[in-house]
């Protein structure tokens, strides 16, 4: 473990009842690194992200964020979550709030920012991602792609040091996927450290500095995207990628 790591996971285990979803995850992200998690549904990708954000308590191991062990006893999870942005598959926008209020809720209520400052920053972020004219709309007036971009802006408004993206394009109509992916690409180019669970293999290949293949709760294989996608070493990785190719997703 290097001192400068943005995120370190050491021997992380997580069970739901008898089912052990994560069976010892070791993973390290350098600052500005983009790591994609691939693997079949149920391989533990989402659980891994939720554990990093402390939405799920882990059973064993430790998680270190920017040098601070966040799984240590007595750590306030709210303070940890303010440093991490997470975007969910189903957007999870707050339907009773305008887009602007969705984005400013965290900065105002969790960070204690003055309302005017939070609004200014939110409008600037919304503008950067082509959403300035939707600020006063409620989420149900927006397309899926717009909703997911708002969700990304909502996470960014907290000025996180790490972003977790959980299958953010899986719930979108195919023609709306591109607009969301281009936002993520922009974040990567801006140097955001990101851990991305995705089914978009060509996107992972394109954007990731490293790809991890999750299988049955362990990282079975990880490496350079070119190597993983063209010359996977593990038979299970090969099988998984063959299924993806057969499904026309790569």
């Amino acid at each position, binding site marked *: 473990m290097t001192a400068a790591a943005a995120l370190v996971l050491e021997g992380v285990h997580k069970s739901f009842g008898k089912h052990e979803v994560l069976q010892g995850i070791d993973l390290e992200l350098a600052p500005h690194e983009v790591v994609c998690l691939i693997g079949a549904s149920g391989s533990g990708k989402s659980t891994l992200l939720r554990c990093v954000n402390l939405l799920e308590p882990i059973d064993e191991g430790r998680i270190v964020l920017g040098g601070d062990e966040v799984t240590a006893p007595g750590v306030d999870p709210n303070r940890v979550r303010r440093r991490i942005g*997470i975007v969910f598959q189903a957007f999870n*926008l707050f339907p009773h709030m305008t887009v602007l209020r969705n984005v400013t809720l965290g900065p105002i209520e969790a960070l204690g920012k003055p309302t005017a400052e939070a609004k200014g920053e939110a409008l600037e972020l919304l503008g950067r991602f082509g959403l300035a004219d939707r600020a006063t709309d409620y989420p149900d007036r927006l397309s899926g792609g717009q909703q997911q971009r708002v969700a990304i802006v909502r996470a960014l408004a907290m000025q996180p040091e790490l972003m977790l993206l959980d299958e953010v394009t899986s719930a979108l109509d195919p023609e709306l996927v591109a607009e969301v992916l281009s936002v993520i690409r922009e974040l990567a180019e801006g140097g955001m450290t990101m851990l991305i669970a995705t089914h978009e293999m060509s996107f992972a290949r394109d954007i990731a500095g490293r790809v991890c293949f999750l299988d049955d709760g362990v990282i079975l294989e990880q490496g350079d995207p070119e190597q993983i996608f063209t010359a996977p070493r593990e038979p299970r990785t090969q099988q998984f990628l063959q299924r993806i190719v057969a499904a026309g997703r790569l």
Partner: protein
Amino acid sequence: MFGVVVVLVVSNAPGWPEVKRLFFNAEIFRDSLEVIPEAFLLNVKIFLVAELAILPCALVIAVLRGLPGPVFFPLRAFAVVYADLFRGVPTILIVYLLGFGVPALGLSGVPKEEVFWGGVALVLVYSAYVSEVYRAGIESVHPSQEAAARSLGLSHTKALRFVVLPQAVRRVIPPLLNDFIGLQKDTALVGLLGVVEAFRQSQIESAATFNFTPYLVTALLFVALTIPLARLTDWLVARDRRKQLAAAGAR
């Protein structure tokens, strides 16, 4: 059709002339209208004040019941016992116990008016019912909403206040109004303590005239108060359905 049959059967019954005299006496009806509506204002007053107390009390109980973690077990247990107890015991017994029991204690600084304790009894009972309505609303908000709020670093309390409760309360307004229709009627129970509200007043009128027509007047007054609330509930339910259809169509 059914109504016509009932009218025919009743009006041809052997005892009908006597019943007609006892329940549908026009003169006593007019006389009752002069005193009972005034007493009915007290029912309306009890209803409004109790409602204002029930809304926050019930919300507190519902929130207590949802507190996470082992630390809050006593508060959760309190909320469960409270809801079970006050929904389980017949309202009339609570009204009697508080209305006759507490003033009899003779404690100084404690109100002695029966109407006060009758109202308290209604608040206690209806807070139990309404807390369950709130709880259903809270549980109907998908857990991903709370997760999204917590992921922004909001505490459980703030997630509840800004994200979960506003959505929950909106959804339970129709069932809340339904419970309030029940509360309107149960204000008559306060009359059992000797408080002269509409029901008690009609008892007095009835005893003075040996006629039941005053009860009919009271019944009509309660119905007149219930109908607007019932229609408002219907309208809100219909509006919610329209909104949901519109939202589903937009996607």
